[in-house]
């Protein structure tokens, strides 16, 4: 079994799925010859041709709006938005059409569309290349939102997203595109949407993270061993719909929780997770849940970005805080 990074794992998933299902079409800016600015679609146009791997004009609304039409017609488009910062022009189509068409036609028309986009910070990118808009999308009915945290996870979750009969936003944590290598099997396997992953068992405190933050959480957990704190780490995987049962079960066990995300704090997904814990496990809580997040400010330029991003130190501090409450 080959050791792949996340870019390669996603590329493999696309390749295999496109072989399996000729209704799949990849479209986006620079996805063809260029193979995408991160090389995620590398080689796909050469293999599947220009009718299945399509370089579009530079227009994000256009990409998702036409992909919506394709999906309704019966194709299974996979649209790439080059960076999450450019998904905002798509929100109109996503909210007003993509998430509603099944409902608006009583099931006559459906939209089996995947929108892939690199997201998040930590690569010293220019402005508007480091955002984390997952909570905005999680608030929109009728779509699913998925974020993988490792190459293996990425392939499995992408396969499920592609096969899902409904629209899925698939955010790829660009910071760990090439940072982790692990064994990724060729061929068929998929990971169900809507189920969180217990990454590491622990009895003292639950840390909930997704995307690139899972690695930060694991690093913090490692550090915390020195303090004899036994951390349970949950990778949320699917942002919408949330697997509240796995979260609640863990909190019922540990009584303490820390949520980690890169997005701005206010109205980030952390809030929803706390609300779910409030509803399902309040009586188990030994301490307020802590949020380790980005701040309610634009993501700073590269030289100051480190202030913004959650890191193992901040996570460990939060864990200690909930432990000593």
């Amino acid at each position: 079994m080959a050791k792949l990074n996340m870019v390669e794992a996603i590329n493999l998933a696309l390749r295999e799925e496109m072989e399996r299902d000729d209704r799949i079409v990849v479209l986006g800016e620079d996805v063809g010859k260029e193979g995408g600015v991160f090389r995620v679609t590398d080689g796909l146009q050469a293999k599947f041709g220009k009718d299945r791997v399509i370089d579009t004009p530079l227009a994000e609304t256009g990409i998702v709006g036409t992909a919506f039409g394709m999906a309704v017609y019966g194709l299974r488009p996979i649209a790439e938005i080059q960076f999450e910062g450019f998904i905002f022009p798509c929100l109109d189509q996503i909210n007003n059409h993509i998430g509603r068409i099944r409902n608006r036609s009583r099931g006559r028309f459906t939209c089996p569309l995947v929108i892939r986009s690199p997201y998040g910070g930590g690569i010293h990118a220019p402005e508007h290349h480091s955002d984390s808009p997952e909570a905005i999308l999680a608030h929109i009915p009728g779509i699913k939102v998925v974020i993988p945290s490792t190459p293996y996870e990425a392939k499995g979750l992408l396969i499920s997203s592609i096969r899902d009969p409904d629209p899925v936003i698939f955010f790829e944590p660009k910071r760990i595109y090439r940072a982790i290598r692990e064994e990724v099997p060729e061929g068929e396997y998929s990971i169900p949407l809507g189920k969180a992953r217990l990454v590491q068992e622990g009895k003292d405190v639950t840390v909930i993270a997704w995307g690139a933050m899972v690695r930060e959480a694991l690093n913090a957990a490692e550090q915390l061993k020195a303090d004899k704190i036994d951390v349970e780490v949950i990778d949320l995987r699917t942002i919408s719909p949330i697997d509240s049962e796995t979260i609640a079960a863990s909190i019922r066990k540990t009584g303490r929780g820390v949520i980690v995300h890169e997005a701005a704090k206010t109205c980030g997904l952390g809030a929803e997770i706390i609300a779910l814990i409030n509803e399902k496990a309040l009586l188990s809580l030994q301490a307020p849940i802590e949020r380790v997040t980005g701040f309610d400010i634009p993501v700073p330029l590269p030289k100051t970005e480190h202030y913004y991003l959650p890191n193992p130190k901040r996570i460990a501090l939060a864990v200690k805080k909930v432990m000593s409450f």
Partner: protein
Amino acid sequence: MSLFEEYHPLTGKMFQILKADGTLVSGQKPPISDQEIFALYKKMLFIRLADQRALMLQRQGRFGTYAPIWGQEACQVGSAYALQKGDWVVPAFREIGATLMMGISLKSFYLYWMGNEMGSRAPEGMNVMPVSVPVGTQTLHAVGVAWAAKLRGEKVVALVFFGDGATSKGDFHEAMNFAGVFKTPTVFFCQNNQFAISVPRSLQTASKTIAQKAIAYGCDGIQVDGNDLFAVYLATKEAVEKARSGGGPTLIEGVTYRFGPHTTADDPTKYRTEAEIEPWKPLDPFVRLRFYLGEKGMWDEEIENRLTAEAQKEIDQAVKDAEAVPSPQVEEIFQYVFAEMPHPLKEQLEYLKSTL
């Protein structure tokens, strides 16, 4: 010279076959048989009456907010008639004409506008997208549908309706541009009814015609008399055939007039006078067809009365049938959000049922 060359937008010419007085433009002839013309007239009449009924029902509190077609019947009937089985219609929100032309039942149409989810489903095989309220957004859908068909090698055309106001939206631009680049078999039909709610066409864009916007995308564009059933039909037919045979998209501007309010919620006296409407009245698409058919002995008051009576009967029945459909159960609004209801939605539905 093709129709689109002859009427290139920068020539300043508007394509017309049947003049307002019911006579033919010299050198032009009707593109369809008299039988067809009569059948389409009958359909237009049915549509106008069904539209009027909707307005009436709304005033009686039996209907939701509704956007009437009044005046734009030729645009929709003429263009939709140019489609073949399997083709798609992507409507905006004023498309009673195109919708009924595609075979959707009046009952179903009414149900939707009565605010009943049971009117939301187009029957299998009728490729009519749901109403698109967010102006202009649907133009992209029509490009996607047509593009998909093209990629599958299926000779299907998508006809999309939108207004003069919609041409100001970025979506229209991106749709036209994609259609141009990928030569998708999309026919863009702009019903230029002179208004976007209160905003007149002249304030919507500084371009002299809507048709000339096609030049920005390397596409054909043509301005047609949108109150002339024949011109609308023929221009659309040429565009549809061109699209089907791989020639790419066309932008058709149908010049017409919205005689009614924007919607039942609108009071047009706020922004236009009766005097402004007056010159448009003789241009009504029905007037010229009555002249034309009258000349052939196919129309007179008596025929009109008979057709009207028949239509009203059918409409009565549709209203009755629609009103007989009960308001949906609560499950109905949760059931179609996803193929399979996810856990949070199940919980929410359970909760809601417990509170009713």
